[in-house]
C-alpha cells in the first residue's frame, strides 16, 4: 500500500471494484480501438490522481509484454489474411493480422490497467469486510481473506523446505530432468503439509465459534456516500447499455 492515500484510495472498496470491473469488461465490450484506448486513458488519469500512475503503468507493461510476443505470433503471423505486409520464412504478416494483434494488445492493456488500479489502491481485507457488511456470508468472507494469506504462506513454506533440501545437496538448477527431480521432494511435503494443517486449523476455529450461523458486527467500517452509490449504478447501467448497443446496433 502506498504511503500517502489519496482521495481515490479513500473511495469505498466496492466503488473501486465496480470501476475495475466496468473498465475490464468494457474494454472487451467496446471492441475496436477507441473504446479500450479511452478506458486506458481514463484509468491512467485516475491512477495519476491516486499517485500510482507510474507504478501501475510499469507493472501492467511488464505483465502484458510477454504476451505481446505470443500475440505477434498468433495474430500477426499465422492468422489468415489477404494483404501481406512482409514475410519471414513461411510466416506472412498481414494487415488483418497486425490489426487484430493491435486490438488485442490494446484490450489486454486496458484490462490489466483497470484491475491493477483496483489492486493497488485497495486493501483486500477492507474489500472483503465491506462485502460482508453488505450481506456476504461471514464464512465466504473468511475464505476470500484466508486465501490471500494462504498464498504467501505456502510460498514461504516451500522456500523453507527447498532451502533445507538444498542444504542436503538437492539440485534445483540444471537440466529439465534435474529440475523436475529437484522440485518433487519440495512439492510433496509442501502440499501434504499444508493439507494436514487443515485438521488442526478447523479444530482451532471451532473453538472460536466459527460455525455459529448468523451475522457479525464487524470492527471495520468503510465509509460510503450517496454519490458513490449513484456512480456505481451509472457505471453498471452504462456498461449494460454499451453491451446492448454492441450486440444489436454496432455489431
Amino acid at each position, binding site marked *: 500500500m502506498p504511503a500517502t492515500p489519496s482521495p481515490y484510495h479513500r473511495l469505498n472498496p466496492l466503488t473501486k471494484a465496480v470501476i475495475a470491473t466496468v473498465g475490464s469488461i468494457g474494454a472487451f465490450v467496446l471492441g475496436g480501438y477507441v473504446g479500450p484506448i479511452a478506458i486506458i486513458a481514463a484509468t491512467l488519469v485516475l491512477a495519476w490522481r491516486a499517485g500510482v500512475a507510474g507504478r501501475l503503468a510499469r507493472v501492467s507493461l511488464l*505483465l502484458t509484454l510477454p504476451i505481446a510476443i505470443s*500475440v505477434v505470433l498468433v495474430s500477426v503471423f*499465422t492468422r489468415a489474411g489477404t494483404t501481406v505486409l512482409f514475410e519471414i520464412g*513461411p510466416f506472412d504478416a498481414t494487415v488483418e493480422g497486425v490489426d487484430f494483434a493491435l486490438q488485442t494488445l490494446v484490450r489486454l492493456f486496458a484490462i490489466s490497467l483497470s484491475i491493477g488500479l483496483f489492486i493497488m489502491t485497495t486493501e483486500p481485507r477492507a474489500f472483503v469486510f465491506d462485502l460482508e457488511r453488505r450481506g456476504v456470508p461471514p464464512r465466504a468472507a473468511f475464505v476470500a481473506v484466508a486465501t490471500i494469506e494462504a498464498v504467501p504462506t505456502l510460498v514461504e513454506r516451500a522456500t523453507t523446505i527447498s532451502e533445507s533440501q538444498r542444504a542436503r545437496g538437492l539440485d534445483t538448477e540444471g537440466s529439465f530432468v534435474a529440475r523436475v527431480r529437484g522440485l518433487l521432494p519440495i512439492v510433496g511435503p509442501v*502440499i501434504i503439509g499444508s493439507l494436514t494443517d487443515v485438521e488442526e486449523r478447523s479444530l482451532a476455529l471451532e473453538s472460536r465459534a466459527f460455525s455459529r450461523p448468523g451475522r457479525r458486527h464487524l470492527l471495520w467500517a468503510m465509509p460510503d456516500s450517496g454519490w458513490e452509490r449513484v456512480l456505481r449504478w451509472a457505471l453498471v447501467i452504462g456498461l449494460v447499455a454499451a453491451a446492448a448497443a454492441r450486440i444489436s446496433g454496432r455489431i
Partner: protein
Amino acid sequence: MSWGRFDTRTIVLIPIAIAINIVLGQTVGAVLKVPVYLDSIGTILVGVLAGPIPGLVTGLLANLIWGYVLPAPFHSDFAAPFAIVAAEIGLFAGILGQVGGFRSRPNTDLGRLLIGALVVVVVLGGIGYYGFLPFYAGADFTFFGDTSTASPFFVALGYVIGIGIIAAMIGLIVLLFVRRDVGVAYVAIGGLICGIISALISAPISAVLFGGVTGSGSDLLVAAFQQAGSDLQTAVLQQGLLQDPIDKTLEFLIAFVILHTLSRRFVARFPQGEKAIGLESA
C-alpha cells in the same frame, strides 16, 4: 449421490486448495516451461473431499481471486474469465469422486489391468491422432514425411507433442502395473473426459476475449494450428483438445496420488472423504 457440504473443514480447506492451485500454476509455468497448466489440483481435491458443489465454488473463487484480488507476483490477468472452466473442473472431479472414480483398487488381476491400459492407450492415442491430423494434412509440414519445406520450429514442436503423448501413455501404463491398481485407469479416463469438456468450454472464452493468447506455451500451438489453415476459433479448440486432456489427466492422477498418500483418518473426516477413498478395514 451427495452434492457436498460446507462444514468447517471444507471452509478451511478451500483457501489452502486455492493457494496450491495458484502456486503450482505459476511455478510450473515459470520453472518447467511445459505445456501443462497444473493449476487445478486444489480444486480437484476439494471436489473429491467435500463434494461437487464445494469443488465448483473452489474453482470459481480460485480464478476470481487470482484475477481480481491478489497482487503481483501472484496475479494473473487471464484467470478471471476462465472461472467457469475451473468451476466445471471442480464439479466434474466431485461427481467422479462420488461414483468412486478415485478409489484405489489394489491387487487387480492382470486381465483387468490390461483392459484398463488398452482403454487408456486408445483414448489418449485418439486424441493425439486427432490433434495431429492438421499436421499431416497441412501442406507445409508433415513431420513424418518430407520435412524439407517445413519450418524446423514446427517440426520440433510436433516432435515435442508426440513425445509428450507417448511419455504420458508410458507413464500411465507404468503407474498402472507398478501399483497393480486399476483405479489409475478410472482416474485417467476421468481426466481425459474432463479435459475434453474443459477444452470445449474454454475455447470460445480464449478466442473471443483474448484473441487466443494467454502468454503461455499453448500460444505456440494455437499459432501452429492457425498456420496449418484453421481459423482462430478452430485453432484454439484444437489446441485445447490437445492440451487439456493431457493436463487434466496429469492433474487427476496427481490428485489421486495425493489422496492416497494422506492418512485415511485425515481423509475420512471430510464430508465426502470416506466415499471417495472407499471403505477399507481399519
